[in-house]
């Protein structure tokens, strides 16, 4: 139990958060996936989320393929979590979800309330960023159902997280999406198929051609959003590297990096080095800016529009 102050607030002690690698949001080919996780196994990442969360038609990897990767990662000392689909529409998707939720070997990341319902009271689970936990009452209610870790919704600010953490249950870990293109919306329609003038049922899985999604720019050619099948993402990559110290003080337990087709391993290393004081934040910040597909943003965390980039100059000074 964390100590309680006279006001009922829990005292947060500074600790070093763990690093996690979120599920791959794009459609990559099998060989690329196996190679990718081979390299991930050699990094200092603590937790790896595996599985398809965007589209049930992406079936290049079978369950046994994912489990093979899971075992390798586990043998390298990683905690493995199986991520599940975000939009459950068809009965076949529900059936698939049920079969994943039956596994007892790995923790499940629920990305839809259907998964939360299947896991409630049966085994502990994690909720992904698409589960709307916007206040402490929701967090406490889900904790009673078996929630052991939650990913903070990406559109909320550090102020809101601070407020929620003041009233959080003791046994729930908090994970923050710190790096990567933000998952912003889900639709029944496939915008990749729409771009190729194909029907969804005959999409030919063309999303495999775009390992970082299809860039959508404004008519002034400003990179704006990214089409990833039925999911819409930000073109800018969220990057909260300048807020690491703040997150440590707040009691954030895990920092999530969302994979991109190139340089993910470098990004993991940069975050790891910063967390352990081996690299100054300002240096990491410019390195990450260069590694992001377009540019970076941190507006949501600072209470503004997600696409904004709040100047971190003051934070950098206080860190050094």
């Amino acid at each position, binding site marked *: 139990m964390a100590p309680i102050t006279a006001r009922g607030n829990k005292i947060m002690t500074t600790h070093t958060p763990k690093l996690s690698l979120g599920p791959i949001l794009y459609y990559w080919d099998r060989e690329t996936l196996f190679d990718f996780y081979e390299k991930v196994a050699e990094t200092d990442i603590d937790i790896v989320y595996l599985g398809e969360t965007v589209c049930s038609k992406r079936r290049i990897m079978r369950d046994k393929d994912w489990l093979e990767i899971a075992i390798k990662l586990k043998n390298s000392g990683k905690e493995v979590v199986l991520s599940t689909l975000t939009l459950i529409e068809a009965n076949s998707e529900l059936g698939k979800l049920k079969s994943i939720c039956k596994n007892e070997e790995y923790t499940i990341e629920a990305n839809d309330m259907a998964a*939360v319902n299947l896991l409630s009271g049966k085994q502990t689970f994690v909720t992904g960023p698409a589960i709307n936990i*916007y206040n402490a009452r929701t967090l406490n209610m889900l904790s009673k159902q078996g929630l052991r870790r939650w990913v903070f919704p990406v559109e909320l600010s550090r102020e809101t997280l601070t407020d929620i953490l003041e009233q959080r249950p003791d046994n729930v870990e908090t994970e923050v999406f710190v790096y990567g293109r933000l998952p912003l919306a889900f639709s029944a329609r496939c915008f990749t*198929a729409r771009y190729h003038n194909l029907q969804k049922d005959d999409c030919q899985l063309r999303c495999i051609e775009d390992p970082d999604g299809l860039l959508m*720019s404004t008519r002034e050619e400003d990179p704006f959003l990214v089409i990833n099948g039925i999911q*819409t993402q930000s073109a800018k990559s969220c990057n909260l590297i300048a807020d690491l110290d703040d997150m440590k003080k707040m009691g954030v337990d895990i920092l999530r990096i969302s994979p991109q087709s190139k340089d993910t391993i470098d990004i993991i290393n940069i975050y790891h080095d910063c967390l352990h004081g081996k690299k100054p934040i300002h240096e990491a910040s410019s390195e990450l800016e260069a590694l992001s597909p377009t540019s970076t943003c941190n507006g949501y965390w600072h209470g503004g529009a997600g696409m904004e980039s709040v100047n971190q100059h003051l934070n950098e000074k206080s860190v050094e």
Partner: protein
Amino acid sequence: MSNTNNTMELVCPAGNLPSLKIAVDNGADAVYMGFKDDTNARHFAGLNFNDKRAREGIAYAHQRGSKMFLAINTYPQPSGWQRWQDAVDHAAELGVDALILADIGVMDYAAERWPDLRLHLSVQGSATSQESIEFYHRNFGIKRAVVPRVLSLKQIKTVAENSPVPIEVFGFGSLCVMVEGRCLLSSYVTGQSPNTFGACSPASAVQWKDTEAGLETRLNNVLIDCHAKDESAGYPTLCKGRFNVNKNTYHAMEEPTSLNTMALIPELQKAGVAAIKIEGRQRSPAYVEQVTKVWRAALDSAQQDPDNYQPKAEWLQALEKVSEGSQTTLGAYHRPWQ
């Protein structure tokens, strides 16, 4: 669970008292409204009900046999929590017939504090399967779930058949291409989203500018579209803009259309759908009047003779006139893009 009595309830929108009265007068079985703040998903200036108007409206509806629902369907953060809690208490004291809720915390509070108050799961709760509806039923005893507009007719049938509670579907109005409750596009650009603020692409962030190329519409400086002189310019709802993908300029997400499922009434009825919801609390009393009148006639006609039901040309024309973009579609219920 299918609706057993085979009549679908007509649920109409009211953004103000004149709309509420017109909906009741023209045959709405139920009318839904919201308070004048960010606790509901139509948080627009000049819209919604203060205490006095809400009391008057509820009395008006109840005297004439219509039910009143109240939407508290945005997601409170701790700094605003009290406002949502007060809204629940206020609605219960006003004697509404049901609360339409999305947030788990708010639902937990409402179920504990007002155990006899009927709760509906809002479309903002993003429940697209019987399994997720079951969560809210098991924990909070919801009596109905409004399902997102992304489901196809086949999927609606499956959910209606297997859901532990009756379901309500959207019949007419503006179309969201994204799953409600799961779209952050608006806050990415403006800082305010339906989840946090109760508005998408809020008016305060909109800019219109006449340029040589045409009329530019922007949202917090981001160019959403540019309309040539001969094109009609719509409100810059983010997902309805034109964007460039590999040098192709097009409606990359959604063309501005409205939803109209009038042709599907017998099938929805057969599927056991309990209620048809009309979108548009932000629209005028004239819209509410027209849509309520036409849908009342259509539902009555389908109820009397489902096998020979056909939407009448004059109904469709009347709806065409009030729909946004003057185009109507069956939305996801029928999926030409599938």
